């Protein structure tokens, strides 16, 4: 995948295709931020991407803040939605997770705490249009 990149889709199948293609380009140590309003499909995207690593039971991490999956790869799936202060994240060991270079990290609602995101990261912004088609904007920061 080249960055920046913008892809438009009109159905869930489109999201699946993008997630499949994207998952083939990521490696251990990558941190992927997903931004987009409620119901834009952030969890759905991670769910699809994880299937390519043999993980089929991804569910919403909103309540647990972080879910851990062990398939062909190890995935930490974060959601900052419920977090009120960044201190809470350090309290649950965010630094330890982020320094685990043997895993892939997805973070939903990462834009809520931009100051604690690592410099090297991929950001995916999902924009829902009025006709409910979606735009995926990919950016990579080194």
């Amino acid at each position, binding site marked *: 995948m080249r960055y920046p990149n913008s892809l438009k889709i009109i159905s869930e199948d489109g999201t699946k295709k993008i997630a499949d293609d994207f998952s083939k380009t990521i490696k251990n140590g990558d941190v992927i931020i997903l931004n987009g309003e409620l119901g834009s*499909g952030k969890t759905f995207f991670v769910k699809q991407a994880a299937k390519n690593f043999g993980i089929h*039971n991804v569910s919403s991490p909103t309540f647990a803040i972080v879910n*851990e999956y062990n398939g062909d790869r190890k995935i930490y799936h974060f959601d900052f939605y419920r977090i009120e202060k960044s201190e809470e994240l350090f309290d649950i060991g965010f630094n330890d997770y982020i320094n685990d270079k043997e895993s892939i990290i997805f973070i939903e609602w990462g834009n809520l705490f931009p100051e604690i995101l690592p410099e090297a990261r991929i950001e995916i912004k999902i924009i829902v249009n009025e006709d409910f088609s979606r735009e995926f904007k990919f950016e990579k920061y080194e």
Partner: protein
Amino acid sequence: MNVLGIESSCDETSVAVISDDRLKANLISSQDFHKKYGGVVPELSSRAHLQIITPLVRDALAKSDLKLNDIDLVCATAGPGLIGALLVGLTFGKALAYSLKKTFIPVNHIEGHIYSGFLMDDKPEFPFLSLVVSGGHTLLLLVESFMQIKKLGSTVDDAAGEAFDKVAKMLGMGYPGGPKIQNASLKGDPSRIKFPVADLREPYNFSFSGLKTSVLRYIQKNFPDKNIPENDLADIASSFQNAVTLALVKNTKRALENYDVKTISLAGGVAANSFIRNSFIELAKTYDKKIVIPDLEFCGDNAAMIAFRGQKLFEAGMKYDLSYAPFPALKEDQYSGS
């Protein structure tokens, strides 16, 4: 026998004492601690659990007229939950048991909810169907005994309680979403908007993500300026609550037709919703089953259910090491004994 239960899997810290099968104390941080000590305790913080746990244990013992040395069994939640939060209660429990030279029992939080109906005077009868619905979990289980639990289905995306919270947010109602939606629904028409009820390949699984998205679409389409008149707000809340309830009832009904059970038991924070409670009371009536729904203090996260579950494991002869590790996620179908 005096049993001490400790729960710290998520936002709540709770300590309970069950003495000769009678519940003596069930203290819950958000209710009891804040009232007594005041001040704002940060949510989601392991430090908050750490600050609260010792005074809660002290208060629970005092309320039960017991000394620390009178405790025979220490039980603490080992998972699932937030790892930092779990570690506080679990390590505290282990250290306490070790110092008192008493037995320690780690408890699966979900199993605590499953058997929470036994904290009521009118108890479930085996075999029973258990529906655990909370902010983090949506599970339908077949419970044949204290040692036999079979998971029939669970959510494939959002938990039911999470859907309540997120839809409440879309409607500008604030947190926690459950009570807000319930109140707004009172004046609403549950049949005005037909929100979708997911039909999945696995007959007992749940999905609430599509429902959440369709509420969002409905709002965007009909109220693009996000200005929703009060009667529409009530109808949306009511129709949404109805769709969640239909989904829960649908799978439970299916299970009732395929498994011969005596009781339906509802547990978890969402079981506090009166519309859902009433729908399950109706369902039980239709199928001529007993229905057990715990009182509100046992629906949300609480240590009484942990103490109860721990004692049952102890009585079944289960033995655990002090090296027992916390587990943040529920492993597939991994319940004690099954």
